[in-house]
């Protein structure tokens, strides 16, 4: 009788570190998937990450690769600078919905429109987490947040933005897909998408963005399992999973 290890902590996950994320937060799953992909592609020493502002601002504490901070929303511009000077490196941003879809909407649209050969991991959990549960550009209609206590009202707050669909209208970006980390069966697909988004860059194919539907149990006011159930029942109908562009 012998034993084979079938899962261990990724090599590029910072050793001996416990994350600051709340219990059951989807950020940890998405971080882990990025680390697993970096390990599988063997690019740890060649990867430069760009950190956002928001809950994932300290992502560099958990990922053992070169990392650069960006001001709120500016990660795609910082990544553009990095990749322009070092086209031989693998440059990716990791951004939440406040960072990417609100304050940084200009930067992501134009980086995508230039077809910049970078990878973007976009975490959509329909809320501002770090600042304490305020309304995000992706907050669903009727969803309560601390700055829309009665629920998001389209007349006052407009509609939640479908970033992937919007960016897919541009000719330059190559791969745009939406996945979720709500359950293992989706997580396996999410990892495939993240791997493809990095592989595309390694092959010099151009701009790739993976939108990851995630949860915020703390600010949604739910237990972790309940939060992912709500994601599946409430977020997924508005934010359908699937590829919106794939280098066609």
């Amino acid at each position, binding site marked *: *009788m*012998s*034993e*084979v*290890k*079938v*899962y*261990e*902590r*990724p090599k590029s*996950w910072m050793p001996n570190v*416990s*994350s600051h*994320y*709340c*219990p*059951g*937060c*989807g*950020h*940890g*799953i998405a*971080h*882990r998937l990025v*680390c697993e992909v970096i390990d599988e592609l063997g690019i740890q020493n060649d990867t430069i990450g760009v950190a956002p502002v928001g809950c994932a601002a300290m992502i560099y504490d958990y990922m053992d690769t070169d990392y650069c901070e960006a001001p709120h929303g500016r990660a795609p511009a910082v990544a553009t600078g990095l990749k322009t000077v070092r086209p031989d490196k693998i440059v990716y941003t990791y951004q939440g919905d406040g960072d990417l879809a609100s304050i940084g909407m200009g930067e992501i649209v134009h980086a995508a429109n230039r077809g910049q050969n970078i990878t973007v991991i976009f975490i959509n959990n329909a809320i501002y987490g770090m600042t304490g549960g305020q309304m995000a550009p992706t907050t669903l209609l009727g969803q309560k947040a601390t700055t829309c206590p009665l629920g998001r009202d389209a007349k006052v707050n407009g509609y939640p933005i479908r970033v992937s669909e919007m960016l897919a209208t541009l000719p330059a970006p190559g791969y745009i897909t939406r996945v979720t*980390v709500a*359950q*293992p069966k989706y*997580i*396996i697909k999410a990892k495939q998408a993240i791997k493809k988004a990095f592989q595309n860059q390694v092959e010099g194919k151009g701009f790739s963005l993976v939108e990851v539907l995630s949860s915020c*149990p703390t600010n949604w006011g739910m*237990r*972790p*399992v309940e939060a*992912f159930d709500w994601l599946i029942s409430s977020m997924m109908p508005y934010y359908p999973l699937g590829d919106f562009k794939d280098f066609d």
Partner: protein
Amino acid sequence: MAKGRIEVLEQYCKSCGLCVAACPVKVLRISEKTNAKGYRPVEQFKEGCIGCAMCATTCPDAAIEVFKIQE
């Protein structure tokens, strides 16, 4: 059925329970122990682990290592 086992890196576990829900053979539960951060780490409380790694796949803290046992 394949056999497996898990090792919980208890210092990283935050008792979120995602693995408990993800386990297809329902061999996991939140333990009565307390780790340094005050969380109660998950544990395998009965035989029957199949080494499918669904628990590790869903763990946000990379706190579970999975082994498959080959006869």
